[in-house]
């Protein structure tokens, strides 16, 4: 597969799985598609980091159906616990980012069995 298509596919997959796992509450399972995507589709660190951002986009998309209520819940929780509101949101996104990037790093660290002789890892 052309490298460009691999990257694009990886971003789409990570976004979709990020959305699905977040929507249904199994966000910690995002590590599984991340490992697989890293193994088959992504190599460069830069792309891995961008894929992490796409996973947070997937999480954010999962908020859309009930966006107002979810944000109100976050706002109330922040006010009750005395934590800045944006911190809770950022923390949520960082967790998803870290799970995705960690999985991608692990997956991309394995040798792909069939590879072009000139393919190089950074």
């Amino acid at each position, binding site marked *: 597969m052309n490298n460009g298509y691999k990257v694009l596919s990886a971003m789409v997959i990570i976004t979709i799985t990020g959305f699905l796992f977040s*929507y249904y509450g199994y*966000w910690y399972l995002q590590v599984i598609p991340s490992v697989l995507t890293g193994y088959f589709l992504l190599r460069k660190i830069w792309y891995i980091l961008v894929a992490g951002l796409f996973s947070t986009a997937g999480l954010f998309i999962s*908020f859309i159906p009930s966006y107002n209520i979810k944000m109100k*819940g976050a706002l109330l929780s922040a006010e*009750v616990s005395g934590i800045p509101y944006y911190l809770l949101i950022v923390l949520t996104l960082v967790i998803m980012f870290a799970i995705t*990037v960690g999985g991608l790093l*692990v997956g991309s660290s394995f040798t*792909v069995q069939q590879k072009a002789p000139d393919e190089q890892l950074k």
Partner: protein
Amino acid sequence: MKIFSSRKRFIAGIIVLIMIFSMISISIGPLPPMNKLLNPNSGIYSVPPEYRTGAKYMNITQDGKTAEVITFQESDGFIGIYSPHNWSLYYEQGYLEAKYRLAQMVFIKKDAQGTLSSLVGKSELKSDIFSREIMDCQIASEEVHNLSKSSYTYMATSNFVDGINAYINNLSYRDTPLLFKLLNYKPHDFNITNIFAIQQTFLWENSAGGFDPLYFQYALQQMPENVIRALYPAYPAGIQNPIVPYTCNPSVYNETGDIRNLSLYTPSVNIPLNLTQVSDSSPVALSFPSSDSFSNDWAVNGIKTDNVSALLANDPHLTTSVPSIWIGFQLVSPEQNVIGVVFPGFPGIILGHNNKLAWGATNGQIQETYFYAEETSPSHPDSYYSNGQWVKFQNINETINIKGSSPYHMKLDVADTGVVIENDSGVKIAMDWTGLNASYELTFFLHIDRSHTVTQFRQNLTEYFRVAIQNWAVADSKGNIGIFPSGEYPVINTGNPRGVLNGTGESNWAGFVPLKDEPYLYDPARGFVFSDNQITVSPNYPYYIGWDYESGYRADEAHLLLNTTSGINTSKMENIQLTIHDYTTNIFLKPLLNSIENYYGNSGLYRELDQWNGNMTVNSTAATVFYFWEQNLVNDTFLPYMHAYGITSSDGLFNVSFFIGPDSMYHGPLIEDLANWTVNEPNTSYFDNPVNGQARNFTSIALEAYNQTVAQLTEKYGKNTDNWHWGNIHKRYLSSFFGVDPLNTRSIPAAGDGNTINAAYGIVSDFGPSWRLVVNLSHPESAMGIYPGGISENPLSNYYSNNFIPWNNGVYYRLIPEKMPAEFYYGYGGSNE
């Protein structure tokens, strides 16, 4: 074979994963694990389940029994439950109370147990100490131990508890209350003892007296007798319309009683008081109904009505919280069809009506706490002197777990005069309270839900309701009405119960007022009964029952309206309930105008006041001026007395009503003294300044107070008096039941004040009619009611506070709406009447 293309990358990835999964799986500081709390689906972002209105049909199975249940959920905060069996009725009630108010119930339970500190930390330690001092759990255990397992009460509470636990045991993290997620708390099962402990805590919160005698002891010790007589008469000064006046029932005034043996103006003991460490009886975290709760209820019969057997109205004044202290149910089985409100954590209905009977309550303001200074001696350790001998205290050891801190250990001392209250005075002060013995008020509620006549109601009342005396107004479909402040009224033979008594035995409780001498009214000739927390009896009642009542102005207004209104119907009852005329304007407005006329007679403000009708409406400037003027009048008159006799903030200054507390304009003696002096003795020497001897009278103080008022309002709201409209300043809001400000509703302009029947106490008020009920006993199915707030405690729900604005606007809902399933009209003779 090469496995890793980059070993470093692999290690980095593993480290990242280990770190992130570790961090989100453990609690960091006070925060719960992030993997659950911030879960996009089930954590703080979870969407509350939809509250579907309408009917739902189901079968429930419990302990091998199956029963049909129909529920009907309404948008007004009420849920109807029908079942052909009582066990399943109460089971479903327990389940639904847990479903919509679980956090509230858990907090109430933990307050009753004295374990709030284990949930929220040290801020609730004082409340927990007090719960242990009044032995909620021990008394509850005794009540359950003595409860027959074949009794209706046992059946109702055990199934109620089963319903709660059925909900708890199937509770997902997603549906866990937000506060529990933040506190990382998983609710535990309830049991019957918990329900009776909750009963105990509500009895305390609704028992009048509280710690007032401790604070009043300062006055007794520091003020001379003549000042006590002038400022704090044992029978309120001013206009009074007692609940049970002599003219309506002289039969209860015949006995000798105990009051003539008591010394109500001098201290029984002189002790070095220090109340700074006295435990707070009410939790910081919870907006509880309390003995400072004020209310209205009245009932009229055929003499006053428009071709109707009887009508009843009730609006208990409690903290208007979210979630509400009330939750609404209609309970229908072959034995009952009752509708009304109940405290979460209780089965049955507390205030409401069935197809034959309606009832309501106001706090009786009867003194139910008596305090005793125990005589102790180093040569008799752990003992007190009583009736001529040294007696060992009964010791109870308690441990209170505190979240984030080491446990608190306490030793509770119990004497024959009650429990010793923790204080820093160096004197062991014991508190006797009628609730320190087992009682079954819960049984009372379960029985009256199925009672059909005023007589049956009273029978259950006198048999089961002993503590937290309320003024029960009752009306039945046959046209009988009554008001019954029934309960245990302590009797003592000597001493001054208004302060701290001598604990050596002579002032111990000698018994209670005999039932035949308890005040009551039944079908009085005037055609109505009423109570607005005013004094219970006329001055010649032979027993001492308390002295610190509501000041009587709502009662004066209600008496005037009920007396002068004929052809009363539901609409007129609602109008009386929503009245915002402040009766104190009848007393003080003219004298105020006379006092300021020479100086301000040509001013716009004077003209507004002169033309004002005394209604505390939102667009009235005169209302604002009068309110603050009255406040300044009380301060200017009585603050010098506090200074002269050394009453400080640690003694209760600005905290209790008789020491210019925030409620002194509508509760307690000071405003009544002012009314009495203004009308009868405007030049009394008690207006003089006791600090510097400056001669004063009503006119001089009224003028001074008026100047202060105008200056304060100008400074705070500007010179434009249009900005002084009462609604710009006076607001209502619903405060968080849990004391968490972000969960409050917004505040909105509100009419009324603490002296109007439609009461809104304070400036930004979260205290007022927590429930409104009007019942026509000829057509009880058409009863109207409303409570502010909503069915749900979830702040994200559309039904959290949906009734707030309609309630503030005086809207009433029909409690048994049309188009319910036919079962819900059982006993009412058909639907849609």
